[in-house]
């Protein structure tokens, strides 16, 4: 087996470059793990089946009390709007439901609950990333493909010895990828 290249694309600003680099890594007989956030936002960017994908958003959702938050912020209000929204106020209720999601639930999730979750050592993005790729898996090359991935990469590197860190596959190849 060749090298294990972890491609961090958490910010999603350079999706095509990340997917292409992952494709190139596996085409060269190496192992690629693409770490991203919310796979659903990558639907327009085909990712090879041979590339292992770690979705930090999915892992975050598995946190113990995230389902509770989801229930309180999304499911209960949605159910309430549905129950109330019958007859002539059905349209109004649907609009209010999506407005709630957009204006209240999402900002609360992003600004209040997620930071609380991420404050826990085991729930920080770098810990989730470690869990996703396997705590004992050796990482030979870490590609940081966008600025949004930098905080996670920096924290990950504080606890892991990665021989090569680069910002693209070309940059990594300049230091002889596959020739350790």
């Amino acid at each position: 087996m060749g090298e294990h290249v972890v491609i961090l694309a958490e910010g999603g600003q350079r999706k095509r470059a990340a997917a292409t680099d992952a494709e190139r890594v596996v085409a060269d007989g190496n192992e690629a793990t693409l770490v991203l956030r919310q796979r659903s936002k990558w639907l327009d960017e085909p990712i090879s089946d041979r590339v292992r994908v770690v979705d930090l958003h999915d892992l975050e959702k598995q946190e113990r009390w995230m389902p509770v938050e989801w229930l309180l912020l999304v499911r209960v209000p949605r159910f309430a709007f549905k129950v109330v929204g019958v007859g002539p106020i059905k349209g109004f209720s649907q609009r209010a439901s999506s407005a709630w999601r957009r204006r209240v639930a999402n900002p609360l999730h992003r600004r209040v609950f997620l930071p609380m979750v991420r404050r826990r050592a085991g729930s920080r993005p770098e810990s989730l990333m470690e869990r996703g790729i396997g705590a004992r898996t050796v990482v030979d090359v870490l590609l940081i493909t966008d600025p949004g991935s930098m905080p996670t990469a920096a924290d990950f590197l504080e606890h892991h010895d990665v021989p090569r860190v680069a910002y693209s596959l070309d940059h990594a190849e300049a230091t002889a990828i596959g020739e350790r």
Partner: protein
Amino acid sequence: MTTPDETGRPRVLYLSFYFPPSRASGVYRARATANHLVASGWDVTVFAAPLSFLYEAIGSVDEKLAETIDPRVHVERPHLNQFVWQHDIRRFSRFRRQAPLLAVNLYNKTHKLFPEHYHSWGMASVAKALRMHMRRKFDVVVATGNPFASFAAAYLFHRLTGVPYVVDYRDAWTLDLFKDKPLYPEGHVAWSWEKRVLHKASAAVFVNEALRKWHQDRYPSDAGKMMIVPNGWDPDVLEEGAPPHKTTRPLQYTYVGTVTPVQPVREMVEAFETARAHPLLSDATLNIYGHLGFFRGSQVGMRHLLNIDDDDRVGSENSGIIYRGPVSKTEVAHTYAESDVLVFLAGGAKYVTSGKIFEYMANGKPIVSVHAPGIAAAEVLAGYPLWFNADSLDPVDVAQAMIAAGKAAEDLTPETRAAAIAHAEKYTRNRVLEPFEERLRTIIAKKD
């Protein structure tokens, strides 16, 4: 009179970012200036780039060159924010790791004040100079660019202390030498900086007439303070008077210097391959000595451009061109002694002199030109009896010049060589720096 210290020596602050052990292209001029001033009775303090920048950020050093600095020269290395050269995320500050875009935006904002990545070095230089000046006064500041943060530092120091300063344009600030057009758009902050720096400077020094003329036209009110101090050659590293190498076939052609993409390297390779069709050059070799690019990372691209194979052969298989790798300035004399013909490969034209040409002339050997017509170096080569210039970059014309230079090398007489060396004597570093040193003395005498 001057402000002498206990030893009676006037004190100069020399702001030269690139200073040995740096091997940047203009470092020899800086080295020679510091050594010449200290030998002429000055107390010289040099502010140079931090060693971490030279070794880690750009990896461009020649340690043997540092040994040629007069031990009386005092070198300080003010701090430089290496933000833009720092690529290893593990060494980023906590702020930059957590907010990378904000960090970049804040860093870029500082460019509105001074448009160079070296501005933090300039500011640190001013702060350090002020501290040193409070303990013992500087009489004059000499700033050499690039980087031009040194000019700005000299200007600020002058505004704060009144100490006069001289700017040495080793390179052009606002002119693109290779494209012969302004480097910045009108209204760019670089223009206002250059204007105010030149206006307050006691003198401005240029390496050739073409550069001085361009600046005189641009800043006519300061034209009177502009002078020329050409580059020169350093007898101490060229073992002046070394006996000429006896020419035996096969002829050895040599290029010594950094190879960069702005040079007509392809034309040189093609011309030499063409010239090898001539019986005289059929077994001749062209040896290329020097670094490939100025920075550690430029090797790969240059090897590709020159088509260098694993055996360091350049061009086609039988081109006769070999890349020999870098040679230290202190070992270059031996390289010249082993050569029959020197190849002057230079990029650009009108404004480019190249420090290398003085060293070439000092060896009294045939020089064949590979550069665009009208190069400023022609000013100093005119009168050199062993100059072979095709005045063209057509490989066929350059090949003819190479053949003629080869013939001259075979027929070289002691008289012709002596005449060539006599021409080069006009350009020893000490000779070209004497008027500059006198100018500095005049400036500090005026101040008092």
